[in-house]
């Protein structure tokens, strides 16, 4: 059976003009325009079989979105060919192609027709779309009055209902609230069962492991790894931990910023290798970028190399409230005894409001440490055991 998507040696060059000539006068005055060339894709080949779900991982600027746009037909490759079979629905960034002045209802029809759905078909699916997006009460309001969440929900709902053979999803799932993210993932799974082809771009490796059949990593315009999601995600973490800070999965409003963080052992020396039962300190230096923040919560989480969530806690649960945060402060979490036996563990650090609605700064799995066991500690968790021998 032919592949649903065949990408053959696709290269894409962007010309970045220092000052792009957008008028005839400028073009005439400067016969040679200085342009920086930027190769966003440097020869990418990948096949996606029908019914397969491919996860596309990569740091920012690695060419993921460019590849998706070329598959969707929005951008033209500079070299190579892309062949697709079947209707494509693409969901790139927020609310693909909504017009702010139109109502939700009108936008559904416009957007659905852009993706190739006829008016009669849209009529039939209209109620499903509205119900899925949960915008029943606002369907006749102009979308300029929609919240960003409603906007994204409506966008996803339309794309999910145009009956595509190929669905391209670009990081949109990170925007909605948790309940909607779950709903989207359920829809994606439904699509998989129906044998549709999905290409899934994301920053969240958990989703790749959960959803995808196969994953690839793009880095600086090249495919650097390809294979089953578990292996690829592990490799991806390794890649990311080597990346410059600017590339990490950093997000948040930065009202409070994590300026540095360290993991060290009992002696206060920064280290990356621990033994089961060791003491471990996670230390964060934080800085407020606004005069003061009420009641922030600092938290950490640990994932293992299968990306399973192992443990997490925060200042609130540990009864270390910070009533007001100003200037610079240091937070230390003292893990009294490491319960891990073996493996690499990834640490996520975050500062957020008490209700977790406002994320000030989140560094997802930026830090890692290894635990190596001795010969004498088989098992999954390390349990501190004292051993006594008595003569009776």
């Amino acid at each position, binding site marked *: 059976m032919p592949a649903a998507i065949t990408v053959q040696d696709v290269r894409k060059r962007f010309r970045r003009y220092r000052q792009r000539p957008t008028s005839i006068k400028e073009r005439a005055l400067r016969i040679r325009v200085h342009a920086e060339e930027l190769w966003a894709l440097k020869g990418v080949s990948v096949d996606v079989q029908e019914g397969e779900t491919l996860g596309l991982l990569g740091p920012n600027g690695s060419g993921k979105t460019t590849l998706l746009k070329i598959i969707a*037909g929005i951008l033209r490759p500079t070299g190579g060919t892309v062949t697709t*079979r079947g209707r494509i629905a693409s969901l790139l960034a927020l609310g693909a192609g909504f017009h702010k002045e139109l109502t939700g209802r009108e936008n559904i029809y*416009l957007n659905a027709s*852009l993706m190739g759905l006829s008016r009669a078909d849209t009529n039939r699916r209209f109620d499903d779309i509205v119900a899925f997006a949960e915008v029943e009460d606002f369907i006749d309001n102009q979308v300029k009055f929609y919240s960003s969440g409603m906007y994204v929900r409506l966008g996803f709902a339309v794309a999910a209902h145009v009956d*595509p053979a190929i669905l391209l999803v670009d990081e949109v799932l990170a925007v909605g609230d948790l309940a909607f993210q779950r709903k989207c993932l359920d829809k994606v799974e439904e699509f998989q069962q129906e044998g549709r082809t999905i290409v899934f771009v994301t920053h969240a490796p958990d989703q790749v492991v959960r959803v995808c059949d196969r994953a690839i990593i793009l880095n600086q315009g090249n495919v650097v790894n390809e294979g089953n999601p578990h292996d690829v995600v592990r490799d991806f973490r390794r890649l990311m931990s080597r990346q410059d800070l600017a590339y990490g999965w950093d997000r948040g409003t930065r009202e409070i910023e994590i300026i540095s963080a360290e993991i060290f052992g009992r002696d206060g020396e920064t280290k990356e290798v621990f033994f089961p039962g060791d003491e471990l300190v996670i230390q964060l230096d934080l800085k407020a970028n606004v005069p003061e923040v009420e009641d922030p919560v600092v938290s950490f989480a640990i994932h293992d190399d299968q990306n399973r969530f192992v443990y997490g806690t925060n200042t609130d649960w540990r009864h270390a409230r910070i009533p007001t945060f100003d200037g610079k402060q240091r937070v230390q979490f003292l893990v009294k005894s490491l319960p891990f036996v073996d493996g690499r563990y990834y640490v996520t650090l975050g500062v957020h409001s008490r209700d977790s609605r406002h994320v000030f700064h989140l560094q997802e799995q930026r830090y890692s440490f290894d635990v190596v066991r001795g010969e004498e500690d088989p098992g999954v968790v390390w349990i501190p055991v004292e051993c006594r021998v008595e003569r009776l």
Partner: protein
Amino acid sequence: MQFSTKGKILAAGGEVLVRTSEPTDLHPISRFGEILGAREIISNLVRKDVKVKYKSSILGAAWSMLNPILYLAVFTLVFTKVLPNDVPHFPVYLLSGLLAWNVFSNSLSFATRSVVDNGNLVTKVYFPREALPLASIGTALVDFILQALVLGIFMLVFRYRFWGINLLLLPLACVALLAFTNALALWVSALNVRYRDTQHLVQLGLVLWFWLTPVVYPSGLLASGRLAGRSLFGISVYHLVLVNPMADIVLGFQRALYKVVTPSGSGGQPILLPVSLGWLAMVLGAVTVGSLLLLLFSWRSFFRMAGDFAEEL
């Protein structure tokens, strides 16, 4: 079970798309089929444009009718009171030409901005880009219908006798108008993506072009009166005007609807160019053929540039 579902989904939209780096050559017939397949996109875009235009306005579509009524009032006042001319039923004369001109001028000004203004669609969804300038023409045609209504009502109220063989010119003039408008619209919409000067140039050009086209002044003046026999570079003004396709098209509309060439009792002073119906039909046929050739040319350049629209916006 699973397998049969797969088959269904592939069949649901089994089109195979191949994309390469080379701007593919335009195959007008197969491309026309694709655009025909996208007619719902076009009609939805027209709907959008019309809705957005009249959103939050109380009078709504009446604004489109006010434009010709205002023209009518101003020019009737100017040409019957301030600078009296001898055109009987001046309002009918004016509106029949203005109808054609407005389609042309509105289409071009909407089309110039169409790709740029719909940047959020172009960068997010793939669809035949021609839909955008075509929708602009569609929007102008909606205005055309409203304005034709004004003229129709006017003719009925004043019992203007427009019925006759002359009306046969109307479809021909419409075809010529659409072909010519399409050719220019595709071209300016693509050009404006690269050079935003285009939209300003088009506006200026349209003003100039309007006065080069006999819409408010009677073209008969060129055949007689002061301009008769004058020439420019050895070509008589009379013929020079006919080089302008819009003059031919406007003349076609006027001849079809207004009809009067030389009003009785005017001393033989013609209002419309005194050419025979057959001759005018031939000119309009030539304009259509020429426009279709031009359309092929501008469509090809649009098609080549369209692949990079998403990048340039």
